[in-house]
């Protein structure tokens, strides 16, 4: 039996890297006395899979992990409470759901992520204001191709960002708030900063280092007809 856990990450704990978040949950699950399944052998490991890793420094409303449970009828409400009790304030469990037998695991099924992006207070002066940014987004949406030079440690190549963006818009707020849903599958994906760099580039502005306050809002899998389904809604 597998359950899917949705959790949030805010505040100081956003500086904790992905591997350490995994280690954190291994201990948190023990503190909460959740009846997790283990692999065999001399040093048994918890049966646990995480969805796409969150970059250091980012916050999130929608992180996911699937864990195995040695219980045919787990009390998901009790597990949620126990985990929250055993967790630090910056990491909260939002939901615990039972995964259907045929559901893909959290890592394999991630297709897209939704982000909310604002500028940090001390960098605002060097970033475009709301109107300007709105205009840039319109420009981007109306152009056919948006070629971005993607550089990783191993490769560097040109990609068309439009193939990876499913939604991009300004929120109706006083301060500039950008929302985007982009591909984050394990095979081929982009990062929110690519889109922001591209936008600023259109206005010849260089994005200052560490200017973006990024919150991942949710992660999605792809339904039969190509629709996006929140990973949370896969569970029951």
């Amino acid at each position, binding site marked *: 039996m597998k359950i899917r856990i949705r959790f949030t990450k805010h*505040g*100081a*704990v*956003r*500086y*904790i*890297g992905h591997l*350490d978040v995994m*280690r*954190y949950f*291994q*201990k*948190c*699950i*023990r*503190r909460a006395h959740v009846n997790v399944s*283990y692999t065999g*052998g*001399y*040093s*048994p490991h918890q049966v646990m899979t995480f969805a796409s890793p969150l970059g*250091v*420094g980012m916050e999130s409303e929608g992180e996911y992990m699937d864990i195995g449970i040695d219980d045919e009828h787990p009390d998901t409400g009790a597990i949620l409470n126990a985990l929250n009790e*055993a967790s*630090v*304030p*910056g990491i909260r469990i939002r939901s615990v759901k039972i995964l259907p037998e045929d559901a893909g695991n959290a890592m394999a099924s991630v297709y897209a992520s939704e982000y909310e992006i604002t500028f*940090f*207070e*001390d960098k605002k002066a060097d970033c475009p204001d709301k109107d300007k940014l709105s205009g840039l987004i319109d420009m981007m949406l109306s152009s056919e191709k948006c070629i971005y030079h993607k550089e990783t440690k191993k490769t560097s190549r040109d990609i068309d960002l439009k193939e990876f963006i499913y939604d991009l818009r300004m929120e109706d707020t006083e301060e500039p708030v950008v929302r985007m849903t982009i591909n984050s599958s394990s095979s081929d994906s982009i990062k929110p900063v690519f889109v922001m760099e591209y936008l600023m580039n259109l206005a010849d502005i260089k994005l200052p*280092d*560490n200017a973006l306050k990024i919150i991942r809002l949710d992660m999605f899998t792809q339904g039969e007809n190509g629709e996006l389904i929140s990973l949370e809604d896969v569970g029951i």
Partner: protein
Amino acid sequence: MSSDGLFLSNDILMSVEKPERYIGNEVNSCIKDPDSVRVRFIMCFPDVYEIGMSHLGIQILYDMFNSFDDVWCERVYSPWIDLDKIMREKHIPLFSLESQRPVKEADFLGITIQYEMCYTNILQILDLSGIPMESKDRTEEDPIVIGGGPCTYNPEPIADFFDIFYIGEGETRYRELLDLYEKMKDEGKTREEFLIEAGKINGLYVPRFYEPSYNDDGTLKDFRPVVDGLPLKVRKEVVKDLDDTYYPKKPVVPYIRCIQDRVVLEIMRGCIRGCRFCQAGELYRPVRERSVEKLLDTVYQMLDSTGYEEVSLSSLSSSDYTHLPELLDNLIVECEKRKVNITLPSLRIDAFSLDVMNKVEDIKKTSVTFAPEAGSQRLRNVINKGLTEEDILSGSAQAISGGWTKFKFYFMLGHPFENDDDILGIGDLANKVAAEFFEMVPRDKRVNGPISITVSTSFFVPKPFTAFQWAPQCTTDEFIRKAYVCRKGISEQLNQKRIHYNWHDADTSVIEALLARGDRKVAAVIKKVYEKGGIYDAWSDQYKHERWIEALDECGLGLDFYAFRERKDDELFPWDFIDIGVSKAFLLKEYKKAARGEITSNCRAGCSGCGAAAFGAGICPGAYKKT
């Protein structure tokens, strides 16, 4: 302060390696309202977070202090060199992890001093905190800087940097010190007045009120207090009953992987053996055990509160813990249920320990460890290491028949009275173990591969309060020659291909000796090294030997005097004013016995009257007295 309540800005946290070192907020870390406490105490381990967080002593004191309603205890560690550089450039003061406020705002800064090579990091901590490095320059605005830990048994080289040293085990006197502090603060007394009164508490030493004088040859002539009412001798503090004291039931759980990424259970303090090179064996006498009942109760609470998947037992010599079988029986059963791994401390290899290892570890992955420390029986008698060649070979034979193929051997080079034959004995011994394997295991039965033996040697550093405190240390050249003799000895063995040899760096060993047996004059050297940019000297990639050699030169001091010289029997040592229970007369007798290759029995086989019985604790009252 950033929006997350952190002291460092997002820009800085995103630009340093492992920002998790600086954010606090760990599970079980203690947050209090600063307005609700009377004393803010910051505990410091002057090395990087992952090292400092692994230290049990701080966890014990952190738990103790925070159990006091009127005290908030926080932690701080050395910023790594990347952040160190930024803090200097941008004039950012050092801050504590819990409150994320400057260290300088605290009432006390307690620094645990576990090894000599961290001395420059102590200056880093003070400097970055904006606290004057020398006690005499501090004002009412500065925290009281207090040092503890094994290096404070010769505090003289760092005496100038501390207001108080706490000599001995921390559990006993802090409450008294804090009460005194609160009372004198209420009475509006000065820092100086407080320090004088603090110096009257047993175990506490306030260095600025003591003065040394020297003979023409540079040795110590006299050492005494210059303020009325302070004791001539400072006696170490000892916890008499380890079942009736503090132990952290909820240790802080770091996010990043630390050196000790597990529950650490201290089963006893002290050691019954009297290895003549070993300082810890003398400092922590008499040996005191915790009861199985208390330990089990504690360990399960710790596992529950931390979620650790591993537990390890800690002590100087766990095989000597009298109730080890009983403790392990219970622990193994319960940990299997909880899916918790047990890592064993280095146990003496025999039928019992191999059986236990077989139960808790994967034979293919783990190795069997021996620490004979010397290659020949003659030299093992000199150092009083009660381990014979027969013990080793029968242990290794049992391990081989149990299926183990990886063996580790630890030795020290440069012991007093060592000659080349003793060194050649190292290769001999390793070869004998390899030969055992090839005789015992036929070719077609070598399922785990052939035997692999790792021999590691470190260099001997004479330490205060050991039988060898009078002994000369080898020069760097002599050390390196010895390592070559050892390597050659190994390479001439029949089974040399199965033996892998590595040795520790010689440069740091002589500097360690300088700092271990130094006097107050050495403080100037440490300060100079720090001013030349020296920090993290305990890290081989950061250590620069030239800095120390230059600084010694500039101060007109030399290693000939501090490291390579044999001391006269009646020389007054800088640390003689500290009373650890074990008498100087006993240690001198041990040094003479070492020269003759005579052994001394361990405390359990018979008390040899070392002097620690004065504490009336642990093994001493019931020990068999030889006539």
